[in-house]
């Protein structure tokens, strides 16, 4: 979580400024490995890369930070906004790929305003320790670079304050972030040196064990420190997490699997009885950080281990689902007969979810999930399940249904989160469980008024 800003003594206008400059050429490997992720948001031990830079700038006494790139910053702007979360002023500007430090300073002259300026240049990891005071370093270092590596440097511009005493300036090491291998090693290093050094998210107050919100850990699951676990994570019975495991958000680790020395990125489902050691897993891709070799798991069955799922339950499931649908049709028939003509005439019930809930009739219709009524006969015919994936999804491994497991779980719905819950239940839920889940869906659904159920 962001920490409160450190107040810099003296005049605000003369406080140190920080320019963070990151160029596309250094980030291209991230774009190749994770096409849907902005490189500045690459999680290192569950904390986005850019936050390490912002934290360091704050530790060095900056209250005004400008982010420079020769690529798009829009996504970052939407997330970091004005920086008020960190108690700093964050602005954004563009540079050209060939610009050097001199150009950066010149193009942002108004921002720097003659103050001392720190330039964090390149896609590198700064090995800082939040317990140390970097303001001394920032105030007294000579102009020019104080640390550099193959993909960037830290440099100062503007005249330093004369050193008050003979205390040696703290040394600073920076590491290139130039490959999956370095990303893996840096995350492991952060995990090993612990949360005291870096400001890390998580409610776990135990050292070496950061655990996010809404994490369900089965009684028989075992956690071996150090670990870092994100939000909305399910650890099923018999799982062994750690030592040295970074689990992102929206992750399910299924029964009996073990994760050690590995990073599991957000939105990943790890099947039953698997062993992940020294690897990076992201979605359906497993990567060896040392060799860079990666395997995309084309079939969802592999993720559930070598025991393939049995299909013997299909007939039973279809029968039970049809029965449930029949009961629902009977229950909903009368409200539908009364409310449908009424709402149809008012134009409030078209072919889709009921979105307006101002009147009593609409509220009632939405509460009773009457909008799904037309789909129910399809369950009787065996064309749809009563509960499964969202009605319109038709991707392999999905079971199209009237209600979705994601609705039942009231899972924070974004596309990929919901898909992962649905996939998990599609494999694990028994026909009898399904009835319980259907009831849960009926109860939970109507609360999501603005969730855009049509999507």
């Amino acid at each position, binding site marked *: 979580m962001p920490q409160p800003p450190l107040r810099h003594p003296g005049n605000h206008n003369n406080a140190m400024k920080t320019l963070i400059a990151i160029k596309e050429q250094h980030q291209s490997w991230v774009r190749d490995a994770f096409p849907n992720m902005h490189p500045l948001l690459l999680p290192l031990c569950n904390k986005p890369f850019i936050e390490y830079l912002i934290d360091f700038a704050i530790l060095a006494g900056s209250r005004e930070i400008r982010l420079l790139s020769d690529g798009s910053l829009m996504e970052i702007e939407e997330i970091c906004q004005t920086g008020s979360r960190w108690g700093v002023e964050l602005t954004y500007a563009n540079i050209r790929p060939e610009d050097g430090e001199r150009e950066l300073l010149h193009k942002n002259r108004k921002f720097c305003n003659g103050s001392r300026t720190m330039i964090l240049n390149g896609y590198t990891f700064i090995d800082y320790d939040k317990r140390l005071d970097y303001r001394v370093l920032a105030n007294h270092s000579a102009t020019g670079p104080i640390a550099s590596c193959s993909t960037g440097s830290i440099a100062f511009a503007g005249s330093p304050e004369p050193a008050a005493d003979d205390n040696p300036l703290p040394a600073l090491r920076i590491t290139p972030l130039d490959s999956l291998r370095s990303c893996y090693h840096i995350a492991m290093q952060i995990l090993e040196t612990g949360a005291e050094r870096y400001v890390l998210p998580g409610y776990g107050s135990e050292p070496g064990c950061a655990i996010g919100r809404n994490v369900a850990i089965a009684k028989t699951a075992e956690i071996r420190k150090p670990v870092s676990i994100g939000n909305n994570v399910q650890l099923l019975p018999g799982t062994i997490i750690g030592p040295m495991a970074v689990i992102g958000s929206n992750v399910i680790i299924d029964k009996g699997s073990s994760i050690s020395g590995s990073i599991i990125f957000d939105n990943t489902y790890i099947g039953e009885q698997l062993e992940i050691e020294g690897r990076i897993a992201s979605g359906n891709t497993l990567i060896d950080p040392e*060799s860079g070799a990666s395997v995309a798991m084309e079939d969802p069955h592999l993720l559930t281990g070598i025991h393939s799922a049995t299909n013997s339950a299909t007939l039973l499931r279809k029968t039970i689902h049809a029965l449930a649908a029949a009961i629902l049709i009977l229950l909903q028939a009368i409200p539908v007969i009364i409310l449908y003509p009424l709402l149809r005439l008012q134009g409030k019930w078209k072919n889709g979810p009921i979105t307006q809930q101002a009147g009593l009739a609409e509220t009632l219709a939405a509460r009773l999930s009457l909008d799904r009524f037309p789909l129910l006969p399809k369950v009787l015919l065996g064309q749809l399940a009563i509960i499964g994936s969202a009605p319109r999804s038709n991707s392999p491994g999905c079971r199209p249904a009237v209600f979705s497991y994601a609705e039942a779980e009231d899972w924070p719905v974004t596309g990929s989160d919901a898909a992962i819950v649905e996939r998990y239940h599609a494999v694990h839920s028994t026909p009898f469980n399904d009835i319980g889940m259907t009831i849960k869906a009926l109860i939970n659904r109507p609360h999501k008024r603005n969730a855009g159920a049509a999507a």
Partner: protein
Amino acid sequence: MAFRLETQNGITIGIAELDERLDAENSKALQKACGDWQQQTPFLVFDCTKLDFIDSSGLGAIVSCLRRSLEKNGDLKLAGLNAKVSMVFELTKAKKLFSIFSNASDAAASFAASRQP
């Protein structure tokens, strides 16, 4: 799937060269062919040098081939796994079931060596 027999120290070893992919499409064929090979010898080597993709059904087929070889007091050894295929074996813990060699001739030689007095 090329298959050849080699005899070393009096043991007949069957060496099968797997194709590029082993998935639901051809895993049944492998199991069937393997049944024929095991009529000739329970000592088998799967040369995976060309194998580039394997899924759960492929993995299942190889494990069932191994089980049948073990039942006949033989073994099934793997050779020449590339990094990707190797990761799949590791992930599913199947790697622990197999003796794995860098190439087919080493794997074949290991059968002969185990027979040495």
